[in-house]
């Protein structure tokens, strides 16, 4: 379990997170939503030690994040940010093999290769495992990076906007994989998503941030509601239930952009 308690973070004079507290439950898909600049990505970076926090506590399985050795934590928690431009030329397999780095420091054993093969198979990358990343489409590349994180075989998997620049088909594909990682593999998945409807359809738990504070948290049923979301995004968000899933119909909101 990841516990965030009273965490604050500033970039220079600008305070991006104020006294944020939340719990991430094991084996569930938790999604962070909120308007641009709400602090979602920053929170994810703090939770994965990519950035140091200013105040508060972040406990990962009961131990403060700063107390973990970096390589030990790398076997328990994986983070994938949204930038996927590498300066080196790698094949898909080589990238996924990096997922085993926390265990092997680059010297792969047979078990490691099996783990890599499984990760490749899980993301349906076996046919293109020998291709270079720069030869792939956006969706394939995204899947390759997720396969690396999967090969890392961590309890916690944190992903920052994994649906960025993906079309509908690939976005659904990725979200199904996220769901499967929680349901089939028992992993704890934490996502930052921009699309509220994907959050609604695939999350167990949603945390909404606004201006660096937790504005609301709960199940999709509790959170995907006109009054709650309307306040967070400052626009009118009608909600319909389609096939058992709450869907926001916000595309023609009259209050958007103050019109």
């Amino acid at each position, binding site marked *: 379990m990841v516990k965030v308690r009273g965490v604050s973070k500033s970039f220079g004079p600008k305070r991006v997170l104020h006294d944020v507290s939340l719990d991430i439950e094991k084996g569930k898909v938790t999604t962070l939503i909120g308007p641009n600049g709400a602090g979602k990505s920053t929170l994810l970076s703090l939770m*994965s*030690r*990519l950035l*140091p926090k200013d105040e508060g506590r972040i406990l990962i399985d009961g131990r403060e994040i700063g107390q973990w050795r*970096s*390589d*030990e*934590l*790398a*076997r328990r928690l*994986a*983070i*994938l*940010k949204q*930038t996927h431009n*590498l*300066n*080196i*030329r*790698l094949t898909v397999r*080589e990238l996924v093999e*990096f*997922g085993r*780095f*926390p265990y092997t*420091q*680059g*010297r792969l054993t047979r078990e490691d290769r099996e783990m890599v093969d499984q990760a490749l198979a899980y993301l349906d990358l076996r046919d293109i495992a020998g291709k270079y990343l720069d030869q792939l489409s956006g969706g394939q590349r995204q899947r390759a990076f997720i396969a690396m*994180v999967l090969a*890392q075989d961590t309890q916690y998997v944190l992903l920052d906007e994994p649906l960025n620049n993906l079309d509908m088909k690939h976005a659904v594909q990725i979200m199904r994989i996220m769901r499967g990682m929680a349901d089939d593999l028992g992993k704890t998945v934490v996502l930052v998503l921009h699309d509220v409807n994907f959050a609604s359809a695939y999350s167990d738990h949603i945390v909404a941030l606004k201006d660096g504070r937790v504005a609301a948290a709960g199940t999709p049923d509790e959170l995907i509601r006109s009054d709650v979301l309307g306040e967070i995004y400052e626009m009118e968000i009608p909600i319909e239930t389609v096939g058992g899933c709450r869907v926001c119909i916000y595309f023609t909101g009259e209050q958007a952009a103050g019109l």
Partner: protein
Amino acid sequence: MKHKRNVVILGILLLLALTVVCLYLFVPLRGNIAYILRLRTHKVLAITLTGAAIAYATVVFQTITNNRILTPSIIGMDSVYQLFQTIMVFFWGSTTLQFVDQQINFVVTVVLMIGFALVLYQALFRKDGTNLHFLLLMGIVMGTLFGSLTTFLQVIIDPNEYAGLQSRLFASVSRVNANLLILGGGLMIPVMLYGLRYVRALDAIALGRDHAINLGVDYGRVIKRMLVLVAVLMAAATALVGPITFLGLLVANISYHMLDTYRRGPLIAAAIAVSVVFLLGAQLIMERVFVYSTPVSVIVNFIGGVYFLYLVLKERTAW
């Protein structure tokens, strides 16, 4: 398949380096053979050491900055070297360069350059963030400042003195003696061996900061150590033979081209081999074709400059 090809290419490069070493040592062999061989062995060792240090430092530096067209000279150590040599001549005359003990000059220059780099790094070390771009910017600014000071002193210096100074400002192995070799080797070889411990971590760092941290690399610590390693190697190499700006850029990129791998270990080995081939080859051409009429750095910089242009143009079309 890919692996096999890399092994073969690396083998060929090492063989090539060995061939050039033999060529340099034994062709042509006449006159006082013992004397000639001793002289040539000194030069070969000096060149191998310097070439290896520069190649090593450049690959490491490009890995931690995630940029393959930067060289460690950007942090301005060349300019510290030039300024120091110029100041010596300016205040005490060019004859000091002959009279001041070579070892003392070497030690003082190395200490000054490493000290400069460490002061520069302080800005980086003190803050929690590892802001490499800030460091590079500082390096460029300081390098320009020292460069301007050097030019200023050179302009008002006595022309005869300047001529004496100039020979120090071009890379040359002619002045390397046995004592200097021991000093330089004693500094560079242990540092290079120590760096091998981090070769695997560098593989992960090549993916970028966030990925490296995710994979459990103690990023801040490794980066700081590698920066110190780069500073020591560059300082020692520069103090030994003088500034050779382009060499690192050239050999690092040739090794990236030749080997189809991301692994820093083989890349460093290849870069060292290419570096030896290049530097020793240039020395060979300089000594036995141009008969000392052209400094080695002119040959290296000419080929390096052409290659650099090719690189820039090629990268542009790739985007």
